[in-house]
């Protein structure tokens, strides 16, 4: 293409100019190399950008949510008054259990904070969690021999104190703009001064179920609910999705009918998830009489929603398997079913698993359809089975995010972190499997 003759010096035999050697070629090559670098940089940029987004989101969440893994506690002196706890003095655990611990709490705030007026008592009780009385009860039931003595006991602090201790409440604000007024602040400071305020790992958060009190609220109930729901969702959507895809891609005659099914499935993916909720309500609860708020129904409904994702991904993966591999197997007398299950499906497995990962991730994060079938609910007990009332992690997050109490902000973020850990755990198997199935040919 050009007339440069510079590298001809030691190659006299070459009579013809190569189009790849001249200056123009070099310029073109330079441009191509530049575009190559640019393209690669775009690719890297895309990956980094997406990961940056993830990191930003995660670090914001971590910044907000890690605090929820600890909980403020307050140490108070308790006079385990026998008159209140065990009036008859025979250490009958039933009597002790039924004693007036609210009264004991009142004694505590009187002794520790000097609160005597009814309003003051109420205010100062607000330093503690509403469950403090049960903590007292449990303490006494465990150590009945201590009745009559004065003990220092660590009690869970209320959400407000927790927020104050973690620095989420600005103490420099004027009193009327603060959640915690000067009196409570004074009590807190006094306690703090004698090292009676401490933060401990928040076991309740990981073992408890929902509560209206942020300091008591836990994520375990919703986690179990999610696990049960997704289990049902998976055992339905995975086999049905994969077999549907296999049928359509490998066996079905290619005609209008299968075109219709194909378009249909693609279209189902675009149906707003709440509509699946309507369907679930009508079919599973209305027609089949399954219970409301139950993981079975949630699982069934989410399975319908997840199916299109799995089917579409599986079909794409099946399509990508080269025909030569199918022919090789057919030529050996493998039946179509054997061709698919022995050769094509294993090669398509990465795509199948990707579809499953995406579909399950979507199912794990979904709230809207669950509203229709009663899973957006306050459920204070950890679900015991597939048909006991349950809620799921995203619903819990949704509900907490909508709560007025400030302390729920960090619980919400922490719950999201738990959900993401759940997601990673759930996907881990699929991801490992996918790597093992990946091969080039």
């Amino acid at each position, binding site marked *: 293409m050009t007339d440069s003759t510079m590298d001809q010096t030691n190659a006299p035999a070459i009579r013809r100019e190569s189009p790849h050697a001249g200056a123009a070629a070099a310029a073109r090559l330079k441009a191509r190399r530049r575009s190559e670098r640019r393209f690669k940089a775009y690719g890297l940029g895309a990956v980094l950008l997406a990961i940056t987004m993830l990191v930003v989101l995660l670090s914001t969440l971590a910044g907000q949510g890690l605090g929820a893994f600890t909980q403020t506690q307050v140490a108070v002196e308790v006079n385990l008054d026998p008159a209140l706890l065990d009036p008859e003095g025979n250490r009958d655990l039933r009597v002790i259990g039924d004693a007036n611990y609210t009264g004991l709490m009142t004694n505590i705030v009187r002794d520790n904070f000097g609160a005597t007026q009814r309003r003051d008592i109420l205010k100062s009780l607000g330093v503690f969690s509403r469950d403090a009385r049960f903590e007292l009860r449990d303490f006494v039931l465990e150590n009945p021999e201590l009745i009559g003595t004065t003990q220092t006991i660590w009690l869970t602090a209320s959400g407000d104190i927790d927020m104050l201790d973690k620095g989420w409440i600005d103490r420099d604000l004027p009193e009327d703009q603060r959640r915690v007024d000067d009196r409570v602040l004074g009590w807190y400071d006094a306690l703090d001064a004698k090292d009676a305020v401490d933060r401990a790992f928040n076991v309740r958060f990981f073992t408890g179920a929902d509560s209206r009190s942020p300091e008591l609220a836990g994520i375990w109930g919703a986690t179990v609910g999610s696990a049960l729901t997704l289990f049902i969702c998976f055992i339905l959507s995975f086999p049905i999705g994969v077999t549907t895809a296999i049928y359509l891609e490998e066996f079905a005659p290619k005609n209008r009918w299968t075109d219709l099914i194909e378009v249909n499935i693609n279209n189902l993916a675009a149906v707003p998830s709440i509509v699946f909720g309507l369907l679930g309500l009508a079919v599973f609860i209305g027609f089949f009489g399954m219970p409301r708020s139950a993981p079975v129904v949630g699982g069934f409904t989410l399975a319908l929603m997840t199916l299109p994702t799995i089917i579409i991904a599986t079909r794409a993966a099946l399509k990508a398997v080269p*025909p030569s*591999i199918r022919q*090789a*197997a057919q*030529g*050996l*007398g493998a*039946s*179509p079913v054997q061709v698919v299950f022995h*050769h094509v499906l294993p090669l398509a497995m990465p795509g199948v698993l990707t579809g499953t990962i995406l579909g399950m991730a979507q199912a794990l994060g979904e709230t809207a359809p669950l509203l229709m079938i009663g899973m957006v609910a306050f459920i204070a007990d950890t679900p015991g089975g597939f048909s006991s009332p349950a809620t799921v992690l995203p619903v819990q997050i949704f509900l907490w995010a909508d709560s007025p109490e400030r302390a729920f902000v960090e619980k919400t973020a922490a719950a999201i972190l738990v959900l993401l850990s759940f997601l990673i755990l759930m996907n881990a198997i699929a991801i490992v499997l996918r790597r093992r199935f990946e091969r080039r040919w």
Partner: protein
Amino acid sequence: MNSSSIPSGAVPKMTARKLNLFYGEKQALFDVDLDIFANSVTALIGPSGCGKSTFLRCLNRMNDTIAGVRIDGKVKLETTDIYDRSVDVVQLRARVGMVFQKPNPFPKTIYENVAYGPRIHGLADSRAELDDIVERSLKRAGLFEEVKNRLQEGGTGLSGGQQQRLCIARAIAVDPEVILMDEPCSALDPIATARIEELIDELRENYTIAIVTHSMQQAARVSQRTAFFHLGQLVEYGDTEQVFTNPRETRTQDYITGRFG
């Protein structure tokens, strides 16, 4: 085609009658009538693109798998019309095995490649028996020595010729009655070619073989009957001797005498 050239007494294992094949609009085979005789080797020769592979693939219905293919006419395996609706293509392909023109090993280990057929057809009752079949097949295809230490490595990591022999081993491991080979030696060196030709000769005693080849010498060496295709038509078919020494058609003559492969 001249049907009088069928040796008396010989039984046709497979017969094609008035076979027409279309890839969409394009016709690739025109009224092909051809008998493949049992216990003999039939060579299909002809210029590139004349329809040899297409014809071969008709014999075990591998063309079914290509979209847009339409077939007219009859093909029989012994007495059954293989395009009949009642025929089980799976069984047909187990009886009529195929080695493809482009080697296509499975992305599995070498061992699994060969063991696959016997496994699905239940030809081995034990692992030892299966090992035995694999080893024997690889040996017959002349590949065993080269790969005996790497049976558990991938079949796609073999050289071109090795892949080709692997595919031959894979096909014979199934023990089919008819073996269709589409240029089985194209990627092989003379020694490996000799090994495969020996194999073909050996197989002929019990099996029926059809082979596509571009080498006239090979056709002459291994086949008893030769079919010459041109532009989708079967131009001449007869005893190999006769076709090579005394072709009836000038087109055959021209093709063969232009030889130097």
